């Protein structure tokens, strides 16, 4: 009983703001500023969302976000898939250390990296480029993605690969014909996870770009530097939250088995 109460409170704590943003985003501008504001928007309208999308720079920022996310997925998968496979399949000296080491990188405060990173990127000509942002996002996501991918590959029985090899496959063929097709849904989940991480990342994106801002960076800039109006903020928030919500719902099964242990 107490557990349920706690769970409900927690859920409400997390979900209420999201619900309020969602409702505000489909409320018309006049209603948004009226007091008292009706809880349920009358009528439901896309006017605010459309206004947001018409603002200068929004569509470009959205495009930038997508480009950065795509590049991040590409890089993170290319790096994490082999690493995850190795962690899942091979027993080598220092395996545990690598696994733990991956997590400890997340303990390092990104803020401390900000200035050196900006300087380095200026030197390398990566400052204010989408590739630069994607590189940072890749670095941020790789530790998690490696662990997810490892858990996905662990889910594919070794005996399947061995059976394929005993039937004439090389190790690579066995991976290609048996392991990969079976791991595909899990790998897709990992890619989606990377997408969300990149889509919502604001710190590095704000810091390392001026003209090529991703959506979160663009929003932060609009709100902080230019004091964007309330309805603009709601609509922007809505666009930021939407993909994450949809996607988390789709991949929660893989998140729950992240370390090979199913949490129920």
């Amino acid at each position, binding site marked *: 009983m107490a557990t349920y109460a706690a769970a409900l409170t927690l859920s409400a704590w997390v979900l209420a703001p999201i619900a309020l943003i969602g409702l505000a985003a489909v409320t018309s501008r006049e209603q948004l500023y009226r007091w008292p504001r009706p809880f349920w928007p009358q009528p439901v309208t896309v006017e605010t969302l459309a206004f947001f999308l018409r603002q200068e720079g929004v569509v470009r920022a959205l495009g930038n976000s997508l480009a950065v996310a795509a590049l991040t997925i590409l890089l993170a998968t290319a790096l994490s898939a082999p690493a995850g496979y190795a962690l899942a399949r091979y027993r080598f000296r220092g395996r545990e250390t690598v696994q733990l080491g991956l997590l400890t990188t997340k303990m390092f405060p990104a803020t401390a990296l900000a200035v050196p990173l900006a300087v380095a990127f200026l030197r390398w000509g990566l400052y204010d480029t989408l590739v630069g942002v994607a590189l940072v996002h890749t670095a941020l996501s790789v530790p998690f993605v490696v662990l997810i991918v490892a858990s996905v590959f662990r889910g594919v029985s070794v005996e399947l690969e061995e059976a394929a090899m*005993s039937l004439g496959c090389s190790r690579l063929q066995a991976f290609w014909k048996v392991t990969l097709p079976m791991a595909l849904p899990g790998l897709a989940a990992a890619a989606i996870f990377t997408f969300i991480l990149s889509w919502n990342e604001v710190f590095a994106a704000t810091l390392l770009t001026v003209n090529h801002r991703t959506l979160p960076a663009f929003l932060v800039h609009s709100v902080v530097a230019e004091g964007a109006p309330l309805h603009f903020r709601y609509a922007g928030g809505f666009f930021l939250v939407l993909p994450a919500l949809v996607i988390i719902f789709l991949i929660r099964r893989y998140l729950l088995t992240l370390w090979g242990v199913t949490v129920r």
Partner: protein
Amino acid sequence: MAEIRLERLHKRFGRVVAVREVSLEVRDGEFVVLLGPSGCGKTTVLRMVAGLEVPDGGRVWIGGRDVTRLAPGRRDVGMVFQSYALFPHMRVFDNVAFGLRMRGVPRAEQVRRVREVSELLQIEDLLDRYPAQLSGGQRQRVAVARALVIRPQVLLMDEPLSNLDALLRMQFRAELKRLHREVGSTTLYVTHDQVEAMSLGDRVAVMREGEVVQFDTPANIYEHPATRFVGAFLGNPPMNFLPAVVRWEGHEPWLQVGEARFAAPREYCQALRERRDEEVLVGIRPEHVVLGTGPLEGEVLVEEVLGPQKLLTVRTLGHLLKVTVSSQASVRPGDRVPLDLPEAGIRLMDPRTEQALDRSRNRAAVSGNPGPLV
């Protein structure tokens, strides 16, 4: 078809020695079972034959070819896994045809051979299904079909029946025997189930702690276990063991068990000559112990009726003996009964090394005296 020869195979995992200098020969068309408790190294031996594990020492020969370092796919072996390892994303047909595809067999020939092997295993009606839609027994058949369809030189099976329930296991055991008779493939089969080993194997290699303890026909292993371990591991209930002292009277050795006196079997005369007044271990199967007559006395503690027979637990001289008697025998728990250990049923072992004393027989057995071929 081909023979398998293992030459002083050695394998370690970290500091643990999994397989210690195992040498073994499986003749062309022979069905050999590797039997032993879990962790005895039997599966590791099989995996080294399959090429899934590289030995630290020794060689594997298949059909006169040294395959020790060859990739699994190039050894021409068919393997059946304990978990069946069917590819879940492929239909039964594609599962069975997988090995043929990897070998570049033309499509028409693939279909013909899959049909042929499906008939043999009675899975013709399942070819369009996915593995998830099959029962355990059906999966088992598909796994065997997939291994057989490539017509491998040797067939390797790793506990293929352990995931089936008792009734299915018995059915499939008989089926595997039929299959072996029809296909005649050289087979190496791993199990921890002694009943399976006895019923399937032309010869059985009993393994313990990475070594082959005894390699012989099931009957010989049952009747003449090379060590106390083998006697206790094979047979249900296991062999009984009682300490005895060797006595000599002129040219006749006899065994003193407690105060009782038993004739020593002839074949041990030589071995007992050096053991005058020393202790030996008497091993005797439950069905050889005679109840109702004899110089020993025991108290019946437990009676278990097992159909046509019943199993008694009898305490004598502080030891518990298992004795099987006919269900009609009128003994009740609490009865005090006389016991006899007939000469023909007695096996003698060294109490310290736990090795059988009739070494000459064992030496012949390990080097592999010919067993009956199917």
